């Protein structure tokens, strides 16, 4: 049995968690800076590393307390090394190094994107969807390689082929904005609160997804060659144009008239993004004979994305339960477990890395 403490501070969340054998979550603490700020009008989370410094000690202590373990019980400490904001990553890495030194524990540096992948290995009731039984999560059989992984969040949109633990082939990624960023920016154009993902989904409920025709960007080659890259910058601009046509004198951040078709706009936008994400992921799974499709990251919380992926996948689809879609440390501990079992040990002087692709481009 391995007991691993995971620490994650790559972006806005300060998080710590204790995970047993890479699958069983004993605790999962996220000091969501979004939550802290929501009561004050939904301004942006405090992005400064100062906030991580304030949160890191109580968050780690709570993760240990909730799991009913002490630092001496740990087999290893896993921390996010990158990609992310250097100043923020350093806070979590230094905490991990301090604990590793003080308690003489092995240290495992983890890629944040690999953490999202391993959120799918954490045991939970909502993980496994079979086509044909769209909304019925099943018992969770072990994941069989190769699998296609779509990581889709505010900062990342990556399509990977995973051959084995730690063995990734990058099929594509966004050329401009991440899918979650498109949700945030379009949410803002529509006057919806931050973060845009849940707000757009809520606004889109029971609206017409075909009311407006937003672009689906396929990036096919001149001869129609397949392309597993994404582009979500144009759809934001298309939304801006549509609003300017509908509402004379519209400018971003200006109040929308009461009769503006916000729900239909939100639904049509969401449909366009989901169409592209699902079609490219399913096509990749077919082309590379993947046994399953895994979807992770904040946007994997989107209900339309989940439904449509399951309907079109023709193979099992795994999606994390909602609390594990967004950044958390349980996924870092889970990825850390597999790295630890493979023999990875990192020095106390490892550097954080702001840019760290998970895999090299597919040949």
């Amino acid at each position, binding site marked *: 049995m391995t007991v691993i403490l995971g620490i994650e501070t790559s972006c806005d969340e300060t998080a710590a968690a204790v995970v047993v054998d890479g699958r069983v979550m004993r605790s999962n603490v996220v000091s969501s800076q979004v939550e802290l700020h929501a009561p004050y009008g939904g301004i942006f989370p405090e992005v400064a590393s100062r906030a991580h410094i304030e949160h890191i000690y109580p968050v780690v202590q709570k993760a240990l307390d909730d799991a009913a373990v002490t630092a001496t019980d740990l087999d290893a400490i896993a921390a996010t090394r990158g990609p992310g904001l250097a100043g923020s990553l350093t806070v979590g890495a230094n905490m991990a190094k301090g604990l590793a030194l003080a308690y003489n524990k092995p240290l495992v540096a983890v890629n944040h994107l690999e953490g999202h992948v391993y959120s799918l290995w954490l045991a939970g009731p909502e993980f496994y969807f079979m086509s044909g039984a769209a909304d019925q999560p099943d018992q969770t059989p072990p994941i069989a390689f190769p699998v296609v992984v779509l990581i889709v969040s505010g900062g990342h949109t990556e399509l990977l082929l995973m051959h084995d633990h730690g063995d990734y082939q990058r099929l594509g990624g966004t050329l401009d904005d991440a899918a979650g960023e498109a949700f945030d920016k379009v949410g803002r154009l529509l006057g919806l609160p931050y973060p845009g993902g849940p707000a757009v989904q809520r606004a889109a409920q029971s609206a017409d997804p075909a009311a407006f025709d937003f672009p689906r960007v396929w990036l096919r080659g001149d001869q129609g060659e397949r392309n597993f890259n994404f582009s979500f910058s144009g759809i934001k*601009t298309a939304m801006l144009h549509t609003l300017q046509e509908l509402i004379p004198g519209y400018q971003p951040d200006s109040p929308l008239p009461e009769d503006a078709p916000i729900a239909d706009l939100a639904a049509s936008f969401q449909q366009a993004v989901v169409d592209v994400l699902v079609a490219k992921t399913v096509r990749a799974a077919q082309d590379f004979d993947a046994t399953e499709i895994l979807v992770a990251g904040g946007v994997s919380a989107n209900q339309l994305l989940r439904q449509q992926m399951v309907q079109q996948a023709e193979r099992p689809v795994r999606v994390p339960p909602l609390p594990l879609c967004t950044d958390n440390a349980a996924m870092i501990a889970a990825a850390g477990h597999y790295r630890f079992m493979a023999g990875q040990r990192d020095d106390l002087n490892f550097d954080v890395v702001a840019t760290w692709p998970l895999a090299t481009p597919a040949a």
Partner: protein
Amino acid sequence: MMSSTESFLSQSVSHTEALGRCLGGVLRPGDVICLSGQLGSGKTSLTRGIAQGWGAAQAATSPTFTLINSYTRQLDELRLYHVDAYRLNSELDAVTTGIEELFDEQAVIVIEWPERLESLLPQDRLWIDLTYQDTKSRRLQALAQGEHSESLLTQLKQCFETLS
């Protein structure tokens, strides 16, 4: 202080990128380019061109979430930082996030939403306001403050004329 302005009309996204490539090709370590404009005004397209023209090994993607993206070029191992201050609440955030320290490095810096950290910016900088004209075209109003950015602006103007 010396300052001068020029106005350019970009006809399309690819025109904006071509202008960016021109500008990227003449940038030197220490240059600061500020890109100001609303959502969809072409800041990221211009930056994509700048990074390409400068010689970045990777294509530039949006730094809105990551705040700072860094690119290196094989030629001389120099760095280009692409900063997005959209999510910063204050200039204090910019200091504690480490953005301020970038100005001390011998690197090229492109900043979106620069008005959020204006007091931290170096005096000599090229400031470009991008505004939406119609579906395709964008107006680029460039203000050079200081000797070095004046020369950048002159080169950008020459380049624009060859493109047109």
